[in-house]
């Protein structure tokens, strides 16, 4: 998978490149729209990461240029603006995605994965999820830890399902709010943490090895250590 990052801030460019290479992508970078457009001409990229505030052109115009050249690779937009422009929302409905700065690297990676899969092929839905000795039956809405049936509320099940689908990968609080409750809000209080504590007390209570872990400063991960 080959990506093109168009971002004028060198520091951001840098850590993005490192993190993406680390995650196994091949990465090209451009510091302005002109270079970005030239590099994209080859049509070798599977996805673009484009900053909206470029020095020589608006990021959205660059996207329009790329689309005009029949490039169908998905775009992940980075924007410093908080209240997102309708045009960006429009792009999101068109299959592209956006992130507001500052963003969690983890979330960027997750969104990128979604974009790449969305663009490549459709997936059949599984009805059963498993992580270590945790089993989720998505049809009957049942969760088992070993032989023990967990008594979960609807939201707890949805949360566990989301963690389980991302087993081994860290998810942030915003990602949880976005995926489990479909809300892009940013609570200052610890509302999401409380959901996790409650879920953890049910999932990990009697088990020898805990599954749900907190990564301070980042989020949560469901994994078997």
């Amino acid at each position, binding site marked *: *998978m080959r990506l093109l990052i168009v971002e004028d*801030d060198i*520091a*951001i460019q840098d*850590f*993005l490149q490192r*993190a993406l290479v*680390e*995650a*196994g*992508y091949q990465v090209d970078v451009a510091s302005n729209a002109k270079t970005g457009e030239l590099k994209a001409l080859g049509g070798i990229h599977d996805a673009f990461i484009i900053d909206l*505030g470029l020095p020589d052109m608006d990021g959205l115009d660059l996207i329009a240029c790329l689309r005009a050249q029949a490039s169908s690779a998905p775009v992940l937009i980075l924007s*410093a*603006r*908080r*209240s997102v*422009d*309708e045009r960006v*929302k429009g792009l999101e*409905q068109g*299959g592209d995605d956006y992130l507001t*700065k*500052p*963003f*969690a*690297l*983890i979330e960027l990676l*997750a969104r990128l994965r*979604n974009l790449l*899969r*969305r663009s490549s092929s459709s*997936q059949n839905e*599984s009805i059963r999820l498993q992580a270590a000795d945790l089993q989720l039956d998505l049809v009957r809405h049942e969760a088992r830890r070993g032989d023990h049936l967990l008594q979960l509320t609807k*939201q707890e099940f949805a949360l566990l399902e*989301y963690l*389980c*689908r*991302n087993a081994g990968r860290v998810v942030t609080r915003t990602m949880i*709010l*976005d*995926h489990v*409750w*479909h*809300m*892009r*809000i*940013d*609570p*200052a*209080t*610890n*509302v*999401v943490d*409380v*959901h996790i*504590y409650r879920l953890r007390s049910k999932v990990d209570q009697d088990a020898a090895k805990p599954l749900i872990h907190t*990564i*301070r*400063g*980042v989020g949560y991960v469901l994994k078997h250590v």
Partner: protein
Amino acid sequence: MSKLRTTAAWRISILTALAYAVGTAITFSIVYFSVANSIQERSDAWLSGEAAVLARVSTETPRDRLYSRAVREVAELAASELPKERNAAGQNLNAVFFLEQDPTDGQGPLWVGPSSNNVFLKAIGQAHPVSGAPQSIKVEGWRTSFRVVAQHEGERTIYLGLSGRGAAHTLQTLALRFLVAWGVTALLGFFISYKSAERTLQRVEQITETVARIGSEELGERLPEPNNLDEISRLAKTFNHMLDRIQTSVKQLRSVTDSVAHELKTPVTSIRGTLESALLEEPDDAWRNSVGEAIEGLDKLTHLLNTVLDLAEAEAGALSLDRRVVDLSDVVKQVVEIYQPAMAERQHELVIDLADHVVVVADVLLLNRVVNNLLENELAHLPAGCRIHIRLRSQQDSAELVVEDNGPGFPPDIIARAFERFVKGKYSPGHGLGLAFVDAVVQAHGGTIRISDLPNGGAMIILSLPVHGLEVPHEASEPIKSLKQVRNFAQTVSALPEEPR
């Protein structure tokens, strides 16, 4: 009808019609009285003239057997000079009588006139008319009074009387026609002024509607400016000038907040990114904790920064609202769901009482944040073990969300300024921006928010959003659903174990 009565067009036309009615009534009365006067003058002149003629005839005619016949003929001739005023039945309305009394000649009075003379003699006897001056005399059995003139010639007295019946009939007809014309004029006046006022005020109404729409959404829109230079066109022009200025300042503000956001967030983004990469690579737990703490600090800073920028835009009316049909009860339900465990953790009792289908046209993302801020406020400020009551009701033309608790209430020194930026209680953990943002968003939607302390402790926040303008088509709510579907799909596929290579 009651709605019609509150319109300015109604008031204006009522006043105009009233002025019309009074004006025409005065004109008609003046005409009526001068006509009545001149009719009387004319009949009086005739009476005096004829009475003088008859007096001369009576003096000059010798008192023989033919005397009474000669006088009678002259009197009848005089009566026939009058225009024959007849009523619908053909009856002559002019009744004339002639009476000559001469106590010296020993004969009875000489009488020319209708029916028996007894009633007339009696009436004249009572009235004692002065010589030469016509006078009105009421005669028994006659509806209208007689104008009577007396002429004294020595011992003899001649009376000539003319019934006012004809004049009265003429005046009555005149008055009736006046009345009809008056009614028609007043009605016509009302109708014409109502129509013209309505037409004029419709243009004002159009301006009001357009400005209301522009105010809350699209600042680029302008009022149409007709070519004529009447007051309403000038109003439209003035509004357009004002909108130009507002648009410019909103644009400036947006560009300022954009550059502030860009300048501040770019370094935060790179710092956060670098820290996060380090955190994910670093195996040492103690070290990771410190980095995690730093990231959390950065996130708090970002949160504050975002809130300040959002608030600056919201308070300047520069929020771009993406209005859609939204069921407020769904929004509240969803946010409450997120907060429920945290509330339970603090031993708060949540009482949720939501009416179904409370539909407003609003920006759903902003509404989410409004409800979020309200609940966050409760969570942050209440001591453990309180009771929070959330009520949602559909009022006649608004949706009302009430959040009530039995906590300590708002501190008295901030209750009046609770919606101002950075105003917060001494021990409040927040930045004092939450309610300010709620207020700004609610105002941008044309709603209101009130806060108060309850008499027996606790605080109450009443948020009311207008439900007008539901003409936004239902299809408009589709994108949100599809967005959700996209997310659901994304969520499904992200579970698959494939790693990109």
